[in-house]
Protein backbone atom coordinates (compact mmCIF):
# COMPACT_ATOMS: atom_id res chain seq x y z
CA UNK A 1 0.00 0.00 0.00
CA UNK A 2 1.19 3.49 -0.80
CA UNK A 3 -0.03 6.62 0.95
CA UNK A 4 0.78 10.15 -0.18
CA UNK A 5 0.16 13.32 1.80
CA UNK A 6 -0.19 16.33 -0.49
CA UNK A 7 0.68 19.71 0.95
CA UNK A 8 2.91 22.70 0.44
CA UNK A 9 3.95 23.08 4.05
CA UNK A 10 0.91 24.64 5.73
CA UNK A 11 0.34 23.74 9.37
CA UNK A 12 -2.60 21.46 8.57
CA UNK A 13 -0.47 19.51 6.08
CA UNK A 14 2.29 18.88 8.61
CA UNK A 15 -0.33 17.82 11.16
CA UNK A 16 -1.95 15.41 8.69
CA UNK A 17 1.38 13.74 7.95
CA UNK A 18 1.87 13.11 11.67
CA UNK A 19 -1.64 11.67 11.94
CA UNK A 20 -1.02 9.35 8.97
CA UNK A 21 2.22 8.11 10.54
CA UNK A 22 0.33 7.22 13.72
CA UNK A 23 -2.39 5.50 11.73
CA UNK A 24 0.18 3.42 9.86
CA UNK A 25 1.91 2.20 12.99
CA UNK A 26 -1.46 1.43 14.55
CA UNK A 27 -2.58 -0.57 11.53
CA UNK A 28 0.53 -2.73 11.53
CA UNK A 29 0.49 -2.78 7.75
CA UNK A 30 3.44 -2.33 5.49
CA UNK A 31 2.91 1.09 3.94
CA UNK A 32 5.06 3.32 1.82
CA UNK A 33 4.49 6.92 2.94
CA UNK A 34 5.40 9.86 0.80
CA UNK A 35 5.06 13.58 1.45
CA UNK A 36 4.36 15.41 -1.81
CA UNK A 37 5.16 19.10 -1.62
CA UNK A 38 5.74 19.85 -5.28
CA UNK A 39 2.81 22.01 -6.31
CA UNK A 40 2.87 20.70 -9.88
CA UNK A 41 2.59 17.12 -8.66
CA UNK A 42 -0.24 18.09 -6.34
CA UNK A 43 -2.07 19.60 -9.26
CA UNK A 44 -1.65 16.43 -11.27
CA UNK A 45 -3.90 14.81 -8.69
CA UNK A 46 -6.51 17.53 -9.40
CA UNK A 47 -6.34 18.65 -5.78
CA UNK A 48 -6.74 22.39 -5.15
CA UNK A 49 -7.31 22.45 -1.41
CA UNK A 50 -4.51 21.10 0.74
CA UNK A 51 -3.82 18.91 2.62
CA UNK A 52 -4.80 16.08 0.33
CA UNK A 53 -4.61 12.39 1.09
CA UNK A 54 -3.95 9.84 -1.65
CA UNK A 55 -4.11 6.08 -1.10
CA UNK A 56 -2.81 3.86 -3.89
CA UNK A 57 -3.23 6.64 -6.43
CA UNK A 58 -6.80 7.59 -5.45
CA UNK A 59 -7.62 10.92 -3.81
CA UNK A 60 -9.62 10.10 -0.67
CA UNK A 61 -9.67 13.44 1.15
CA UNK A 62 -8.95 17.11 0.41
CA UNK A 63 -8.65 20.24 2.53
CA UNK A 64 -9.12 18.45 5.81
CA UNK A 65 -7.12 17.45 8.84
CA UNK A 66 -8.33 13.92 9.53
CA UNK A 67 -8.15 11.99 12.79
CA UNK A 68 -6.14 8.78 13.23
CA UNK A 69 -9.36 6.71 13.19
CA UNK A 70 -10.57 8.37 10.02
CA UNK A 71 -7.30 7.60 8.26
CA UNK A 72 -7.47 3.99 9.49
CA UNK A 73 -11.01 3.69 8.13
CA UNK A 74 -9.88 5.02 4.76
CA UNK A 75 -6.94 2.59 4.72
CA UNK A 76 -9.27 -0.35 5.28
CA UNK A 77 -11.71 0.58 2.55
Amino acid sequence: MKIEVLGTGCSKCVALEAVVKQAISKSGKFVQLEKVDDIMKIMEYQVVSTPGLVIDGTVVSTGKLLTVDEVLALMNK
Partner: protein
Amino acid sequence: MWKESVDYLIYDLLKLEGHLGEAINFFIYDTFKIWFLLITIIFAVSYLRTHFNTEYVRAHLQGKSQLYGNVLAALFGIITPFCSCSAIPLFLGFIQARIPIGVTFSFLISSPMNNEIAIALLFGLFGWKVTAIYIGFGLLVAIVGGYIIGRLNMEKYVLMDVKPMQGELEEVKITLSMKERAKEAYTYTREIFKDIYIYVIIGVGIGAVIHGYIPADFIAKYAGAENPFAVLVAVIMGIPMYSNAAGVMPLVEVLTGKGMLLGTALSFMMAVTALSLPEAMILKKILHIRLIATFFGIVGLGIIAIGYLFNFIL
Protein backbone atom coordinates in the same frame (compact mmCIF):
# COMPACT_ATOMS: atom_id res chain seq x y z
CA MET B 1 -34.82 34.75 28.76
CA TRP B 2 -31.03 34.73 28.87
CA LYS B 3 -31.08 38.52 29.28
CA GLU B 4 -33.41 38.26 32.31
CA SER B 5 -31.25 35.56 33.91
CA VAL B 6 -28.12 37.65 33.62
CA ASP B 7 -29.96 40.74 34.90
CA TYR B 8 -31.18 38.74 37.89
CA LEU B 9 -27.69 37.39 38.62
CA ILE B 10 -25.94 40.76 38.41
CA TYR B 11 -28.49 43.18 39.83
CA ASP B 12 -30.43 41.04 42.34
CA LEU B 13 -28.09 38.30 43.51
CA LEU B 14 -24.75 40.09 43.36
CA LYS B 15 -26.28 43.54 43.86
CA LEU B 16 -23.87 45.23 41.45
CA GLU B 17 -24.82 48.67 40.20
CA GLY B 18 -23.65 51.54 38.04
CA HIS B 19 -20.89 51.33 35.46
CA LEU B 20 -19.32 48.21 36.92
CA GLY B 21 -22.60 46.30 37.07
CA GLU B 22 -23.44 47.28 33.54
CA ALA B 23 -20.04 46.29 32.20
CA ILE B 24 -20.06 42.88 33.91
CA ASN B 25 -23.66 42.24 32.89
CA PHE B 26 -22.80 43.06 29.29
CA PHE B 27 -19.69 40.86 29.39
CA ILE B 28 -21.49 37.76 30.67
CA TYR B 29 -24.54 38.25 28.48
CA ASP B 30 -22.59 38.83 25.28
CA THR B 31 -19.87 36.22 25.73
CA PHE B 32 -22.30 33.34 26.20
CA LYS B 33 -24.69 34.60 23.55
CA ILE B 34 -21.89 34.79 20.98
CA TRP B 35 -20.45 31.42 21.94
CA PHE B 36 -23.83 29.79 21.54
CA LEU B 37 -24.44 31.43 18.16
CA LEU B 38 -20.99 30.58 16.86
CA ILE B 39 -21.36 26.93 17.75
CA THR B 40 -24.82 26.55 16.16
CA ILE B 41 -24.10 28.48 12.98
CA ILE B 42 -20.64 27.05 12.37
CA PHE B 43 -22.02 23.56 12.82
CA ALA B 44 -24.85 24.21 10.37
CA VAL B 45 -22.55 25.81 7.80
CA SER B 46 -19.86 23.16 8.04
CA TYR B 47 -22.47 20.40 7.69
CA LEU B 48 -23.74 22.02 4.49
CA ARG B 49 -20.21 22.41 3.29
CA THR B 50 -19.41 18.73 3.38
CA HIS B 51 -21.36 18.63 0.10
CA PHE B 52 -19.04 21.07 -1.64
CA ASN B 53 -15.30 21.20 -1.82
CA THR B 54 -12.95 23.39 -3.79
CA GLU B 55 -12.40 20.64 -6.37
CA TYR B 56 -16.14 20.57 -6.99
CA VAL B 57 -16.22 24.34 -7.40
CA ARG B 58 -13.39 24.22 -9.89
CA ALA B 59 -15.10 21.60 -12.02
CA HIS B 60 -18.26 23.74 -12.10
CA LEU B 61 -16.49 26.97 -12.98
CA GLN B 62 -14.69 25.47 -15.92
CA GLY B 63 -15.68 26.84 -19.30
CA LYS B 64 -18.14 29.43 -17.98
CA SER B 65 -18.34 32.81 -19.72
CA GLN B 66 -16.63 35.83 -18.16
CA LEU B 67 -19.39 37.64 -16.22
CA TYR B 68 -21.44 34.53 -15.45
CA GLY B 69 -18.26 32.92 -14.16
CA ASN B 70 -17.65 35.88 -11.84
CA VAL B 71 -21.16 35.66 -10.39
CA LEU B 72 -20.95 31.90 -9.94
CA ALA B 73 -17.47 32.10 -8.35
CA ALA B 74 -18.62 34.75 -5.88
CA LEU B 75 -21.64 32.63 -4.90
CA PHE B 76 -19.50 29.52 -4.47
CA GLY B 77 -17.30 31.61 -2.18
CA ILE B 78 -20.10 31.68 0.40
CA ILE B 79 -20.28 27.95 0.87
CA THR B 80 -16.70 26.83 0.38
CA PRO B 81 -14.26 26.97 3.25
CA PHE B 82 -11.17 29.01 2.61
CA CYS B 83 -7.81 28.84 4.25
CA SER B 84 -5.15 31.25 3.06
CA CYS B 85 -2.69 28.36 3.21
CA SER B 86 -4.44 26.78 0.20
CA ALA B 87 -4.37 30.00 -1.82
CA ILE B 88 -1.51 28.83 -4.05
CA PRO B 89 -2.81 25.40 -5.08
CA LEU B 90 -6.20 27.02 -5.57
CA PHE B 91 -4.90 29.78 -7.79
CA LEU B 92 -2.71 27.54 -9.93
CA GLY B 93 -5.34 24.81 -10.04
CA PHE B 94 -7.88 27.26 -11.41
CA ILE B 95 -5.46 28.41 -14.11
CA GLN B 96 -4.79 24.81 -14.98
CA ALA B 97 -8.52 24.35 -15.55
CA ARG B 98 -8.45 27.38 -17.90
CA ILE B 99 -10.58 29.48 -15.55
CA PRO B 100 -9.82 33.18 -16.25
CA ILE B 101 -7.97 34.94 -13.41
CA GLY B 102 -10.80 37.44 -13.02
CA VAL B 103 -13.14 34.60 -12.07
CA THR B 104 -10.53 33.18 -9.70
CA PHE B 105 -10.27 36.57 -7.99
CA SER B 106 -14.05 36.75 -7.58
CA PHE B 107 -13.75 33.53 -5.63
CA LEU B 108 -10.68 34.70 -3.70
CA ILE B 109 -12.49 37.88 -2.61
CA SER B 110 -15.82 36.30 -1.76
CA SER B 111 -14.62 33.20 0.06
CA PRO B 112 -12.79 34.77 3.03
CA MET B 113 -15.26 37.68 3.20
CA ASN B 114 -18.22 35.32 3.58
CA ASN B 115 -16.55 33.04 6.09
CA GLU B 116 -18.69 31.25 8.64
CA ILE B 117 -17.27 33.08 11.67
CA ALA B 118 -18.06 36.50 10.23
CA ILE B 119 -21.56 35.47 9.17
CA ALA B 120 -22.36 33.83 12.50
CA LEU B 121 -21.23 36.91 14.41
CA LEU B 122 -22.97 39.38 12.13
CA PHE B 123 -26.22 37.47 12.38
CA GLY B 124 -26.01 37.20 16.15
CA LEU B 125 -24.91 40.75 16.85
CA PHE B 126 -26.61 42.83 14.17
CA GLY B 127 -29.55 40.72 12.98
CA TRP B 128 -30.44 39.35 9.57
CA LYS B 129 -30.82 42.71 7.80
CA VAL B 130 -27.24 43.83 8.33
CA THR B 131 -26.05 40.29 7.56
CA ALA B 132 -27.94 40.35 4.26
CA ILE B 133 -26.50 43.77 3.39
CA TYR B 134 -23.01 42.56 4.25
CA ILE B 135 -23.29 39.42 2.12
CA GLY B 136 -25.04 41.24 -0.75
CA PHE B 137 -22.52 44.02 -1.04
CA GLY B 138 -19.66 41.61 -0.36
CA LEU B 139 -20.80 39.63 -3.40
CA LEU B 140 -21.02 42.82 -5.42
CA VAL B 141 -17.41 43.73 -4.58
CA ALA B 142 -16.30 40.19 -5.45
CA ILE B 143 -18.16 40.13 -8.79
CA VAL B 144 -17.24 43.63 -9.94
CA GLY B 145 -13.68 43.44 -8.57
CA GLY B 146 -13.05 40.10 -10.25
CA TYR B 147 -14.59 41.33 -13.49
CA ILE B 148 -12.35 44.43 -13.57
CA ILE B 149 -9.22 42.40 -12.81
CA GLY B 150 -10.23 40.06 -15.62
CA ARG B 151 -10.51 43.01 -18.01
CA LEU B 152 -7.02 44.33 -17.19
CA ASN B 153 -5.21 41.48 -18.97
CA MET B 154 -2.99 40.71 -16.02
CA GLU B 155 -2.38 37.03 -16.80
CA LYS B 156 1.28 37.89 -17.50
CA TYR B 157 1.73 38.76 -13.81
CA VAL B 158 1.26 35.17 -12.74
CA LEU B 159 4.85 34.17 -12.11
CA MET B 160 4.46 30.44 -12.42
CA ASP B 161 4.05 28.69 -15.71
CA VAL B 162 1.09 26.38 -15.53
CA LYS B 163 0.21 24.16 -18.44
CA PRO B 164 -3.51 24.39 -19.06
CA MET B 165 -5.01 20.94 -19.17
CA GLN B 166 -6.94 19.62 -22.12
CA GLY B 167 -10.57 18.62 -22.02
CA GLU B 168 -13.04 18.49 -19.18
CA LEU B 169 -12.11 18.03 -15.57
CA GLU B 170 -12.94 14.87 -13.81
CA GLU B 171 -14.48 15.52 -10.43
CA VAL B 172 -12.70 14.23 -7.38
CA LYS B 173 -15.47 12.11 -5.92
CA ILE B 174 -15.54 11.62 -2.19
CA THR B 175 -18.82 10.26 -0.86
CA LEU B 176 -19.84 10.45 2.77
CA SER B 177 -22.77 9.18 4.81
CA MET B 178 -24.94 11.54 6.87
CA LYS B 179 -23.30 10.36 10.07
CA GLU B 180 -19.84 11.01 8.64
CA ARG B 181 -20.94 14.48 7.58
CA ALA B 182 -22.28 15.27 11.04
CA LYS B 183 -19.10 13.97 12.62
CA GLU B 184 -16.97 16.05 10.29
CA ALA B 185 -19.04 19.17 11.02
CA TYR B 186 -18.70 18.47 14.75
CA THR B 187 -14.91 18.10 14.54
CA TYR B 188 -14.63 21.24 12.45
CA THR B 189 -16.83 23.27 14.81
CA ARG B 190 -14.80 22.11 17.80
CA GLU B 191 -11.51 23.03 16.11
CA ILE B 192 -12.73 26.51 15.13
CA PHE B 193 -14.26 27.16 18.53
CA LYS B 194 -11.05 26.15 20.28
CA ASP B 195 -9.20 28.68 18.14
CA ILE B 196 -11.50 31.63 18.59
CA TYR B 197 -13.32 31.46 21.95
CA ILE B 198 -10.55 33.44 23.61
CA TYR B 199 -10.81 36.23 21.03
CA VAL B 200 -14.50 36.48 21.76
CA ILE B 201 -13.69 36.96 25.46
CA ILE B 202 -11.09 39.62 24.67
CA GLY B 203 -13.30 41.43 22.17
CA VAL B 204 -16.35 41.40 24.43
CA GLY B 205 -14.18 42.37 27.39
CA ILE B 206 -12.91 45.50 25.69
CA GLY B 207 -16.43 46.10 24.42
CA ALA B 208 -17.81 45.81 27.96
CA VAL B 209 -15.41 48.47 29.22
CA ILE B 210 -16.41 50.80 26.39
CA HIS B 211 -20.06 49.94 26.96
CA GLY B 212 -19.88 50.72 30.67
CA TYR B 213 -17.40 53.59 30.85
CA ILE B 214 -16.80 55.47 27.62
CA PRO B 215 -19.43 58.10 26.79
CA ALA B 216 -21.22 57.91 23.45
CA ASP B 217 -20.23 61.39 22.29
CA PHE B 218 -16.56 60.38 22.50
CA ILE B 219 -17.11 57.56 20.00
CA ALA B 220 -19.43 59.67 17.85
CA LYS B 221 -16.77 62.34 17.60
CA TYR B 222 -14.08 60.00 16.26
CA ALA B 223 -16.01 57.26 14.47
CA GLY B 224 -19.36 58.93 13.82
CA ALA B 225 -20.77 61.42 11.36
CA GLU B 226 -18.48 64.21 12.58
CA ASN B 227 -15.41 62.53 11.16
CA PRO B 228 -15.47 62.42 7.35
CA PHE B 229 -12.38 60.17 7.22
CA ALA B 230 -13.82 57.53 9.54
CA VAL B 231 -14.46 55.03 6.71
CA LEU B 232 -10.95 55.40 5.32
CA VAL B 233 -9.31 54.97 8.71
CA ALA B 234 -11.57 51.99 9.49
CA VAL B 235 -10.50 50.17 6.30
CA ILE B 236 -6.80 50.76 6.92
CA MET B 237 -7.16 49.58 10.51
CA GLY B 238 -9.01 46.48 9.36
CA ILE B 239 -6.24 45.13 7.10
CA PRO B 240 -3.92 43.65 9.75
CA MET B 241 -6.75 42.12 11.81
CA TYR B 242 -7.70 39.16 9.66
CA SER B 243 -7.40 36.31 12.13
CA ASN B 244 -9.21 38.27 14.79
CA ALA B 245 -12.65 38.61 13.22
CA ALA B 246 -14.08 36.84 16.28
CA GLY B 247 -12.76 39.51 18.60
CA VAL B 248 -13.30 42.49 16.32
CA MET B 249 -17.00 41.99 15.59
CA PRO B 250 -18.25 42.21 19.21
CA LEU B 251 -16.25 45.40 19.51
CA VAL B 252 -17.85 46.85 16.41
CA GLU B 253 -21.29 46.07 17.84
CA VAL B 254 -20.53 48.20 20.90
CA LEU B 255 -19.09 51.01 18.78
CA THR B 256 -22.17 51.18 16.54
CA GLY B 257 -24.35 51.21 19.67
CA LYS B 258 -22.36 54.23 20.80
CA GLY B 259 -22.71 56.23 17.59
CA MET B 260 -20.31 54.76 15.02
CA LEU B 261 -22.12 54.86 11.67
CA LEU B 262 -23.22 51.58 10.13
CA GLY B 263 -21.41 52.24 6.84
CA THR B 264 -18.15 52.73 8.69
CA ALA B 265 -18.78 49.53 10.63
CA LEU B 266 -19.52 47.59 7.42
CA SER B 267 -16.36 48.86 5.72
CA PHE B 268 -14.32 47.96 8.75
CA MET B 269 -15.69 44.42 8.95
CA MET B 270 -15.21 43.84 5.22
CA ALA B 271 -11.63 45.09 5.41
CA VAL B 272 -10.97 42.73 8.32
CA THR B 273 -12.16 39.67 6.38
CA ALA B 274 -11.38 40.45 2.73
CA LEU B 275 -8.02 42.21 2.89
CA SER B 276 -5.65 39.85 4.58
CA LEU B 277 -1.93 40.53 4.79
CA PRO B 278 -0.93 36.89 5.38
CA GLU B 279 -2.85 35.91 2.25
CA ALA B 280 -1.07 38.62 0.25
CA MET B 281 2.30 37.36 1.49
CA ILE B 282 1.46 33.82 0.41
CA LEU B 283 0.21 34.92 -3.01
CA LYS B 284 3.37 36.92 -3.53
CA LYS B 285 5.21 33.67 -4.18
CA ILE B 286 3.29 33.14 -7.40
CA LEU B 287 1.94 36.58 -8.33
CA HIS B 288 3.70 39.77 -9.30
CA ILE B 289 3.37 42.51 -6.71
CA ARG B 290 1.50 44.60 -9.28
CA LEU B 291 -1.31 42.08 -9.53
CA ILE B 292 -1.57 41.83 -5.74
CA ALA B 293 -1.58 45.62 -5.42
CA THR B 294 -4.32 45.85 -8.05
CA PHE B 295 -6.33 43.22 -6.18
CA PHE B 296 -5.98 45.06 -2.85
CA GLY B 297 -6.59 48.43 -4.50
CA ILE B 298 -9.82 47.43 -6.22
CA VAL B 299 -11.24 45.62 -3.20
CA GLY B 300 -10.17 48.45 -0.88
CA LEU B 301 -11.81 51.10 -3.05
CA GLY B 302 -14.98 49.02 -3.35
CA ILE B 303 -15.22 48.62 0.42
CA ILE B 304 -14.61 52.33 1.02
CA ALA B 305 -17.28 53.24 -1.53
CA ILE B 306 -19.78 50.96 0.22
CA GLY B 307 -18.99 52.58 3.57
CA TYR B 308 -19.59 56.11 2.30
CA LEU B 309 -22.69 55.04 0.40
CA PHE B 310 -24.25 53.61 3.55
CA ASN B 311 -23.26 56.49 5.75
CA PHE B 312 -24.89 58.75 3.20
CA ILE B 313 -28.20 56.95 2.73
CA LEU B 314 -28.81 55.57 6.23
